[in-house]
């Protein structure tokens, strides 16, 4: 009972950013793997964000689209649907050469990632 209630409180927090039932279904309810994936996510997301920022700063639209695509893939894999949708918008904006849309959505994505990273930290810390 103690373990179950612990999961419930941890899950409630993270579910603001992650579709946890969807993610758990896709990893076949492996809670150990979930923790491992969150840890990997925390390591990887700054790298992918940095690549996206570098591409936008240099005005390289092809690279922006590629970096947004990779970030979108990881966020979608982690069932972080809102974040994935924002990354998809950046990718689409880069392909249609809409730099204004890129900048606006990137700021929103940065904020989303900052919030969800804090939630992930709290989840992993238990």
């Amino acid at each position: 009972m103690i373990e179950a209630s612990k999961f419930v409180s941890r899950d409630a927090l993270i579910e603001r950013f992650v579709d946890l039932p969807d993610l758990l279904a896709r990893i076949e309810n492996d809670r150990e793997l979930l923790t491992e994936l969150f840890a990997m996510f925390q390591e990887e997301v700054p790298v992918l964000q940095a690549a996206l920022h570098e591409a936008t700063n240099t005005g390289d639209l092809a690279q922006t689209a590629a970096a947004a695509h990779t970030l979108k893939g990881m966020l979608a894999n982690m069932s972080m649907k809102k974040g994935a949708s924002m990354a998809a918008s950046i990718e689409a904006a880069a392909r249609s050469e809409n730099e204004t849309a890129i900048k606006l959505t990137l700021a929103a994505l940065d904020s989303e990632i900052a919030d969800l990273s804090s939630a992930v930290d709290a989840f992993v810390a238990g």
Partner: protein
Amino acid sequence: MRILIADDEPVSLRMLEKTLERAGYEVTAVRDGRAAIKELCSPEGPRLALLDWMMPEFDGPAVCREVRRQRGGRHVHLVLLTSKNSKQEVVSGLESGADDYLIKPFDPDELKARLHTGLRILQLEDNLVEAREEMLYKATHDSLTSLLNRGTIVELLARELTRTRRESGCTIAVLGDLDHFKLVNDTFGHMVGDEVLREVAKRLLSSVRSYDFVGRYGGEEFLLVINNCDAMKALERAEEIRTAICRAPIDTSRGPLAVTVSIGVIASRGRALETVEEFLCEVDRALYAAKSAGRNCCREAGFEI
């Protein structure tokens, strides 16, 4: 079953790896297309692969094209993982040589079902290859003795004669005929005759080197092709083979039977024979000479006295 997964994004790679391990696959995980090509094109590489579409340098479709180009033999079942889902993109992925595609983020049940389809295709291919190899074996070997059949041994002799002529080497052909074999069949029956032929085949095989060839030329006639042999020792080699056949009686279901063989032998070096037929004609004459000399002996073509 071994499977290769390739994705430059580590979270996705780990999810795939774990899902597949749980499903019983032996997983090789790589982070880029170049490593995927290397693994898939190695002789014992995995025959099932999940490839992310977007990877630096070699993307999924490029890996498919390269694997199809380099690995011509056994089929490798390639599945592209993609978040691209427009018809045009899917068609371009399949045209690159992929067998299937899966939309990311993947559903584990769909992933396993699609890989099962791949496994069924690979199994079907294995069955076809096995059937083809069996047919090839049957087409080139004698069913009773498992030696090469007449067509194959003559073809090999022709090939060896061409090669040794080009390399100024020497090929020896040994044509042996079991003495009074009709008497064995008539006295003890064809089953015993078959037992004798099978044992003679074994003795012939153990009397030559692994890279020489032994074939059943006719009913009780055997043709041996001996490569890179000293022409001066042709008769000596033939005598060794004759001794190997008759050194001990053959144990049959009707008791032990003493068997002897007459042998004609010919070495290619120093002869101006143009065709394999001429070569065979000469060795057949030598065999006839051995029979005429009282059987259970060897004669070399050109030295029939």
